[in-house]
């Protein structure tokens, strides 16, 4: 095994007991990046010089007996998180030259935990997409099949973990942007409860739905990463002042006696047959762990996508109004007046999918249409949340597929926005209700593409998700494969 193939907890042990240096780990990761990045293109910006300098500091710390939870571990960051002094593009032309003067809270917390950043990962422009094809900086390829997309919007972060171009990474999830790429790249991805992780310094897409979360190689690493990033932040007024448990304590608890809900609305026509079979096996696995699977109903499921495609663009159209060519980012030459400058900046600075969503959002919020669209969607959203509240009176956790299909071909859905939006059909409801979700590997299709299973729990019950996902991971005995890169 090469160092870049290992997990956080494996490397922690090596650093603590075997005297393996962070510099060796970082060197191994960057030699891997040199070998495969040309094919995968997981990163927009590499922070190689910085990473080696930080690794040297970590090595010095270790010699002095200072050991933090992530000391010396190479972590990649989605390019939507502000990094002081390092380019942060959000995958967009309009921010192609933006160097933030401050760190996102999550970045600061990871630094304080000892992490070494490898770089900023590729993403759909402003996190709007399910395939990482809308990035201004080119596409990312799925490490399992270079002809296919890695999922999105955090496709770079998922691909970087799957291809061993980092040990773990951070993404953001507004409608499935962590869990769907995690499923399609065969890694673990968690979207925490809304308010569990501070969004300060996360470039906003849809503020009532956005959450930051980790991509890891296994569930134990997910718990370690959650320990590092979760918690109240006085700078973020929607972060919730609740104590954060030690998530690693949930790893070996088992789920004997649990009730696991299987929502009948999530097993619909159109699911890939290999995914359907994998889900049947997943149900058997969960029952083998001493839990009972019960059929539940989330009756408003069929409206989730419609609600999302009003609310997310509405919030985006407002959030993205700030990109006007005045304070930062791209501004074209030769404007005749201020209005002309705004229009030229935004028309040349945003890509087609971002413009499409700004248009939907602006329309939905415009005078005379507000009640018909935004208000109606917000009411149905309340009913979707109620569905989950009622479901969790009948079960401890919910099991669903993460995505209806495995990774699709590059270009396959680019001209049909609605088909692309359907990729998120099983993940969107989680963001609307604000509950946490995790995607864990649960097998492969006949063609060798990874499949993900999604577990959902009630608000602030990430511990339960770690508990069931780690039990599942151990017991399901999913074949260990690595992408042939």
């Amino acid at each position, binding site marked *: 095994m090469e160092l870049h193939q290992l997990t956080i907890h494996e490397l922690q042990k090596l650093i603590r007991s075997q005297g393996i240096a962070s510099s060796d780990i970082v060197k191994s990761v960057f030699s891997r990046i040199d070998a495969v990045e040309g094919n995968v293109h997981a990163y927009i910006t590499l922070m190689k010089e910085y990473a080696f300098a930080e690794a040297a500091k970590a090595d010095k710390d270790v010699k002095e007996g200072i050991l933090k939870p992530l000391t010396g571990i190479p972590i990649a960051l989605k390019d939507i998180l502000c990094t002081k002094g390092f380019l942060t593009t959000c995958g967009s032309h309009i921010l192609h030259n933006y160097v933030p003067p401050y760190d996102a809270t999550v970045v600061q917390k990871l630094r304080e935990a000892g992490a070494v950043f490898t770089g900023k990962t590729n993403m759909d422009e402003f996190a709007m997409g399910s395939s990482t094809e809308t990035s201004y900086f080119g596409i990312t390829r799925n490490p399992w099949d270079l002809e296919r997309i890695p999922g999105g919007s955090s496709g770079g972060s998922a691909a970087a973990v799957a291809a061993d171009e980092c040990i773990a990474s951070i993404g953001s999830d507004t409608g499935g942007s962590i869990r769907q790429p995690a499923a399609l790249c065969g890694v673990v991805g968690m979207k925490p409860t809304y308010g569990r992780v501070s969004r300060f310094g996360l470039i906003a897409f849809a503020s009532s739905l956005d959450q930051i979360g980790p991509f890891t190689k296994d569930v134990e690493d997910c718990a370690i990463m959650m320990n590092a990033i979760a918690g109240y932040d006085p700078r973020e007024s929607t972060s919730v002042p609740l104590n954060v448990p030690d998530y690693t304590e949930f790893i070996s608890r088992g789920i004997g006696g649990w009730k696991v809900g299987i929502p009948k609305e999530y097993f619909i026509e159109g699911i890939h047959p290999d995914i359907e079979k994998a889900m049947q096996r997943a149900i058997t696995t969960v029952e083998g762990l001493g839990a009972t699977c019960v059929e539940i109903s989330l009756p408003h499921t069929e409206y989730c996508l419609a609600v999302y*495609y009003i609310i997310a663009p509405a919030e985006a159209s407002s959030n993205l109004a700030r990109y006007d060519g005045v304070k930062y980012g791209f501004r074209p030459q030769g404007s005749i007046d201020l209005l002309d400058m705004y229009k030229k900046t935004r028309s040349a600075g945003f890509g087609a999918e971002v413009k499409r969503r700004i248009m939907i959002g*602006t329309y939905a919020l415009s005078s005379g249409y507000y009640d018909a669209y935004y208000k109606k969607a917000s009411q149905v959203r309340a009913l979707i949340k109620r569905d989950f509240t009622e479901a969790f009176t009948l079960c401890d956790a919910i099991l669903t597929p993460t995505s209806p299909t495995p990774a699709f071909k590059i270009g396959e859905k680019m001209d049909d926005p609605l088909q692309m939006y359907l990729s998120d059909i099983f993940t969107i409801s989680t963001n609307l209700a604000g509950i946490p979700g995790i995607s864990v590997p649960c097998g492969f299709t006949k063609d060798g593409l990874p499949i993900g299973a999604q577990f959902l729990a009630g608000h602030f019950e990430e511990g339960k998700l770690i508990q069931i996902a780690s039990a599942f991971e151990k017991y399901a005995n999913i074949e260990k494969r690595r992408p042939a890169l």
Partner: protein
Amino acid sequence: MGIEKQDTGLKITKEEVEYVAHLARLDFSEAEKSKFTSQLNDILMYVEKLNQVDTTNVEPMSHAIALQNVFRDDSVHDSLSHDLSLSNAPEARGPFFRVPKVIE
């Protein structure tokens, strides 16, 4: 809205797309306008299905975890310096962001 809906059977007309584009401070070519009109129509037709849901007496929800009156102490903290605040500006002069002339 500034434009009357024409009876085209469409949710949104090209003229409305032009009006919304202006509100959003976006310019489109003729080809883009046609493409957007058709794609926005598809999306708006799709979201029509929300009208099947009875939402009588349902309070609209804005945030999943409703917090109210989040206050902080009114205390002085460090803030970004002028130089740092202007460091990303496409154009700056002295302590100001520079934009095309606004007042005639």
